[in-house]
């Protein structure tokens, strides 16, 4: 596929790996904010192309992971009602709420459908006028325009049996919160390319400057990520802390203006609770007054837990919050690969394929010290291994 497979070729990957190795003189800790990048890093084994003293830590950029338990509980409450068709993106079904998950509501008879787009949920509402169709509108800035469009069209077409249960997050306030943390080990950021596709990156220079961190807007293909790392390391080595755009084929400085307008038309900013992390001011979106009839929480008379509750208190021992702030790794969690596994997650990051814990579990690298020395069929691995040992 064009604009995809050319960014996954061994030769160019190797060239960039060489460039990174060449430019790196000391240990650096870099966070890729976005779960999509985490997934790519682990799936494609990109760490293996990096010098051993570059540490990647995985950020909170997975909406499945950061949606508060309270919202899951509201979703479960609504989805269990007899007259409701509850629509969600697939991964949300297995995220544990305080007592159970949406999957079990479905197993108990709730009508829960997996959709590919918010517009598919809206179509269901048109098709089933006798049912209340509720869409669990999770997402970052990338998904916000799509969610907004569903509400906008519902209002425009008078599809009043449709509503959104929103769980919308904004990335820059989260980056700032992490920068402010005294424990933070993060020396540079790969900013999420698709968030910036919508929002542009005009808000980043002040962050880079204020906290002295390089920020590189980065894409999702292996070559993108390695280039993002390269640019970031280059800045670090050179003592710079600027904003660079690795993903210029997709992202412009000002972002997607029509999409931003749609977000502004439908949503307004609010303080937002992030699962495992806590409240971050101005880091969420909620429906504007004019769109309240399409607010599922309001329609079903549910408490607006989103802004009231602080849901950091996970009693399960899940350390997802620390992982998503770059303070710990999945393997530091006592539950990892024991009680907590993709088929029986304790925390949300074990659910989504973008969650750091699931990514680590699924695409685990094997014990290199044993396996790398006794390869039988290896063809291209000698050079790579050599590179890695430099």
């Amino acid at each position: 596929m064009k604009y995809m497979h050319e960014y996954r070729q061994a030769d160019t990957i190797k060239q960039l790996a060489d460039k990174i190795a060449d430019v790196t003189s000391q240990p650096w800790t870099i966070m890729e904010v976005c779960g999509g990048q985490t997934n790519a890093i682990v799936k494609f084994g990109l760490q293996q192309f990096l010098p051993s003293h570059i540490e990647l830590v995985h950020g909170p950029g997975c909406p499945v992971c950061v949606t508060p338990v309270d919202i899951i509980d509201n979703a479960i409450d609504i989805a269990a009602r007899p007259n409701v068709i509850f629509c969600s993106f697939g991964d949300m079904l297995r995220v544990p709420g305080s007592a159970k998950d949406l999957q079990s509501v479905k197993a108990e008879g709730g009508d829960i459908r997996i959709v590919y787009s918010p517009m598919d949920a809206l179509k269901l509402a048109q098709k089933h006028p006798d049912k209340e169709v509720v869409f669990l509108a999770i997402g970052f800035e990338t998904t916000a325009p799509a969610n907004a469009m569903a509400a906008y069209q519902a209002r425009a077409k008078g599809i009043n049996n449709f509503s959104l249960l929103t769980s919308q997050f904004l990335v820059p306030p989260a980056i700032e919160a992490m920068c402010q943390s005294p424990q933070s080990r993060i020396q540079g950021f790969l900013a999420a390319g698709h968030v910036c596709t919508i929002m542009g990156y005009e808000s980043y220079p002040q962050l880079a400057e204020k906290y002295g961190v390089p920020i590189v807007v980065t894409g999702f293909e292996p070559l993108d990520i390695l280039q993002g790392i390269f640019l970031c390391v280059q800045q670090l080595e050179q003592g710079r802390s600027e904003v660079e755009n690795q993903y210029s084929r997709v992202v412009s400085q000002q972002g997607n203006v029509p999409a931003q307008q749609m977000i502004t038309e439908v949503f307004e900013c609010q303080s937002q609770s992030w699962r495992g992390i806590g409240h971050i001011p101005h880091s969420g979106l909620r429906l504007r007054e004019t769109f309240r009839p399409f607010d599922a929480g309001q329609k079903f008379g549910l408490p607006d837990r989103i802004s009231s509750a602080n849901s950091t208190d996970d009693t399960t021992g899940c350390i997802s919050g620390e992982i998503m702030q770059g303070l710990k790794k999945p393997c530091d969690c006592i539950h990892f690969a024991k009680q907590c596994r993709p088929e029986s997650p304790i925390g949300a990051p074990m659910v989504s394929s973008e969650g750091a814990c699931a990514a680590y579990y699924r695409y685990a690298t094997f014990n290199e010290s044993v396996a790398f020395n006794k390869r039988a069929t290896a063809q291209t691995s000698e050079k790579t291994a050599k590179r890695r040992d430099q």
Partner: protein
Amino acid sequence: MCLAIPGKIEHILNAVPMERTGTVSFGDIRKEINLAFVPEADVGDYVIVHAGFAISKINPTEARKIFQLLANDETDPPC
């Protein structure tokens, strides 16, 4: 964040601005995609698609840059 992949606009199916849609091809497959947020993108253009929406047109010139950079590196090793 969030899964988004490149595809090529094959046809415009609905030209009404807020309801603009088209057929987008991904490798060998095609799907109807909402184009309301990429009014500038037309048949033949590549777009990035997320959750059923095209969220950006791909700039081919920018796309080539990294390969040009690496090609230059190749002929002129940095060290």
